[in-house]
């Protein structure tokens, strides 16, 4: 079976669920949810056993599709995060449905499947048109998801903000693509890399196009100075959607960035120096503008939003460090590794937030007061998640940061390194402020909180993943380095 069939099947399943719900309104939400989950699990299993050779793709899609390690990795990644989001939606359903117009959640189960298909497609993109179409498939679905809790003013506000800024960034992205096409005469990444290596190519036009493209993608991955929408949208969107945005949307943006930068920074590229400096500046700015305001947040959800910005900054800095013989991983591989560690810790954080919400609690730091007494398991899970987000040794988050920092040191980017160190230090402060609140303060309410066994199991798996990746990251490294992941330009 070809990988493309799986993607198409997933999108079709999403459409089918949408239709079923439209024509058979009394279908129960657990049926819908479980069908979507079953479809995703099936897709994941099929992906493992599918033919991983590019030649197996249908001939009409081959010019635009590639299957390298990075593409396969991100496809798996998209499926896993979709699975977790679907499950989280089902877990939060009783609470979420109070905020929807008809008390139903149908689209919340079908749209993630379509988003997932879009992300999987994007991972394989070989040219800017495919990137654009896939990206829009993802973004447009997210417009709906973010504003899904219609009865909540915050969610509506978030939806409008995301729509306007998302549309704007799409415009800029297309503009950049047009300039690049104008400068290089091609849309494919391979072609762009070749054209940029040719000194006759107009440098100004190519650079302008590349800068616009980076601006457009900067919006998607929440890079400074295009990050202003993130805290409001993250806070307003339903928690499962926030988790999806924070992990899925970010990963999708970074696949495209990895591919585009492989072309822009390929051997002999005329714009390599400028693009690299741009990345360093934007990356340094992003870590700082993510971390420093986070220190003053009182809402954990907003705090996670700022933390998500600063993680985007680390990832950008990783991309700025090109291949070094000192690492087995390419910069694209390091980004993939970082995102793989970012997934369990972020989802775990949002999962705890969702469970708190399901117990009728808010999302402020003060709601976490005394959590250690009310439910020690929940407090421990949150501690593991936050310790890893802060980058504490022996957790997955540390290994990811280690790669980024070593890369910066190895290339001698001292300015960016100092920004990253300051951001990491600030990170320790704001993550542990929340952890301390759980353990050292007494809340007004001291009744015990209950969480379902299924939640415990999923959270336990995520926490175990964080710790295992923290002490034994070798297998993941080997998967990502099994071929020269991320190198498109041959």
């Amino acid at each position, binding site marked *: 079976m070809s990988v493309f069939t799986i993607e198409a099947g997933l999108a079709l399943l999403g459409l089918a669920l949408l239709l079923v719900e439209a024509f058979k309104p009394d279908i129960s939400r657990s049926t819908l949810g479980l069908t979507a989950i079953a479809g995703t699990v099936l897709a994941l299993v099929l992906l493992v056993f599918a033919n991983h050779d590019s030649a197996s793709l249908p001939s009409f899609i081959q010019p635009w599709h590639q299957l390298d390690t990075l593409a396969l990795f991100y496809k798996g990644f998209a499926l896993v995060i979709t699975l977790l989001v679907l499950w989280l939606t089902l877990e939060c359903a009783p609470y979420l449905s109070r905020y929807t117009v008809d008390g139903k959640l149908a689209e919340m189960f079908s749209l993630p499947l379509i988003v997932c298909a879009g992300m999987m497609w994007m991972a394989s993109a070989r040219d800017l048109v495919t990137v654009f179409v896939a990206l829009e498939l993802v973004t447009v679905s997210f417009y709906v998801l973010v504003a899904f809790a219609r009865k909540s003013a915050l969610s509506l506000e978030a939806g409008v903000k995301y729509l306007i800024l998302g549309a704007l960034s799409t415009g800029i992205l297309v503009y950049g693509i047009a300039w690049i096409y104008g400068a290089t005469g091609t849309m494919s990444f391979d072609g762009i890399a070749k054209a940029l290596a040719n000194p006759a190519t107009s440098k100004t036009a190519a650079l302008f196009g590349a800068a616009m493209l980076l601006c457009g993608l900067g919006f998607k991955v929440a890079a400074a100075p295009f990050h202003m929408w993130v805290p409001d949208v993250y806070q307003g969107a339903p928690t499962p959607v926030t988790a999806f945005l924070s992990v899925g949307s970010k990963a999708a943006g970074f696949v495209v960035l990895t591919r585009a930068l492989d072309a822009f920074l390929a051997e002999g590229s005329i714009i390599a120096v400028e693009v690299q400096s741009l990345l360093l500046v934007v990356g340094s700015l992003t870590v700082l503008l993510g971390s420093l305001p986070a220190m003053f947040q009182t809402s954990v959800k907003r705090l996670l939003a700022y933390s998500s910005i600063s993680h985007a900054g680390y990832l950008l800095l990783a991309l700025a460090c090109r291949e070094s*013989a*000192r*690492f*087995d991983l390419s910069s694209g591989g390091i980004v993939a590794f970082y995102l793989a560690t970012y997934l369990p810790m972020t989802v775990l954080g949002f999962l705890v937030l969702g469970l708190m919400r399901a117990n009728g609690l808010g999302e402020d730091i003060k709601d976490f007061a005394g959590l250690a007494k009310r439910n020690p398991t929940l407090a*421990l899970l949150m501690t593991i998640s936050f310790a890893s987000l802060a980058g*504490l*040794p*022996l957790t997955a988050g*540390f*290994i990811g940061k*280690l790669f980024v*920092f*070593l890369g910066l*040191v*190895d290339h001698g980017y001292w300015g960016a390194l100092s920004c990253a*160190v300051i951001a990491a*230090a600030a990170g*320790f402060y704001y993550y*542990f402020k929340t952890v*301390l609140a759980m*353990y*050292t303060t007494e809340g007004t309410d001291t009744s015990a909180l209950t969480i379902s066994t299924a939640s415990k199991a999923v959270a336990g798996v995520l926490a175990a993943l964080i710790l295992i990746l923290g*002490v*034994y*990251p*070798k297998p993941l*490294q*080997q998967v990502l*380095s099994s071929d020269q992941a991320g190198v498109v330009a041959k």
Partner: protein
Amino acid sequence: MSVLELIIALPLLAALAIWLGAPARAASMGATLINLILVFVTTIQYAGKTGLAFTQSRPILDNPSLSFAVGADGVSLILALLTTLVMLAAIWQIQDRPAIFYISSLLIGGGALGAFLATDVFFIYAFHELALIPTFLMIALHGRADAAQRKAVAWKATIYLGAGSLVLLAGLVWLVLEFSGGSKLTFDLEALRAQAALTPLPIAKQGQIFFVLLLGFGSLVSLFPFHSWAAPAYATAPTPVAMLHSGVLKKFGLYGLIRIAMPLLPQGVHVEWVQNALLLMLLGNILVMGLVTIHANRLDDTLANSSVMHMGYIFLGIAAGSEVALKGAVILMFAHGVSIALLFGLCGRMRNQLGTLEYSKLGGLATHAPAFTVLFAFGAFASIGLPGLTNFAGEVMIFAGSFTNFKAAALSNLHWTVFLALWGVVMSAVYMLRAYRGIFHGNATTGLFMTDPAVSQRVPFILLATTLLVTGCCPWLLLNLMKSAL
């Protein structure tokens, strides 16, 4: 599987078991007792050997090369022995406290064991961090001041030690980059050592890196002027945490200097400006903190400040860098760890019984608590450096080892420092004897009196006091372990 891995894993597993619901006291006592026996047997097996033994390496990342590698030489075994001894005493003396006291003690001790027995720079660093977190949490959660004050103390320690750790990390990364042969980054201490022996760095650069490491490791050991977190932290910390941090975990910085900085940068400490800076800082520890200690008016203040002060002698051994001085430094690390843990343990008991530690309110306690007084005397006299107790052996070796190449006409800065540092011994005698006499002798004018601990509660303190006596009379027991280590 190396026995060292078992030694590191046992306390961590016990902590996990307690968190999952195992009986706290039984599990932690059992694990610590087994661990003490394991370390003891391992040490006996090591006696007479040289170099690293019991090694085991499990790669966890290929390139940059990172592995969970363990191995022990005399220095690490002496410190592992210190850790398990203090752990047993600290856990034994806990009474009527929630499980988190046991869990945090196990985590601090387990982290320290990991830091002392790992041979991969990454894990050495990571284990130390693992041990620091419960320390901060316990001070903030169960410290002995009111909530606002103990949080302030915990934050202060966190900021100092966090900043110190960052500087340290920068220095370690610098080392790794300089010494990783070829294109492969490695964190393995043995590989780095081999590379350092093969192609030593230029002397000026050794000095620079050594200084960065000195600042990083130094702030973890309360090197003057980065010391101001230590005294309030120890005075506020719950007893087992104070015993474990001041006794064991603080030695990590010194261990790092001796184990990582000095072998990789053999000329680093002898670069003139680095040595002068270190001498000035350690004189700050000995003389300034000595005077501060004399002026303390509470027992916990005296002990906490004296613990900062005594680090100065160990730094003197490192500054001298001679074989004898360094071995003396290791012995003093062991001795100070045992004696300060003994004193903090007893001090904690006094506070629980009397409710105050102010000298003006205490007196004549010996009348009703003779055994307690004797035990305290062991700690106090060891701390002063009385011959027959381990601290004396360490201090003598440091002073003798630092005072080499003496020519009256041309005294080096090191010689002058030794002259000045000797006054520290006098100051120790002044504050310790005054505290001892004021608290235990004289008339019980204030109506406060305490009783001896039950026999079973004396055991941990007797264990520590005996250790001081045995290794004090026969310091060769420890010296024999360090035939080649330095």
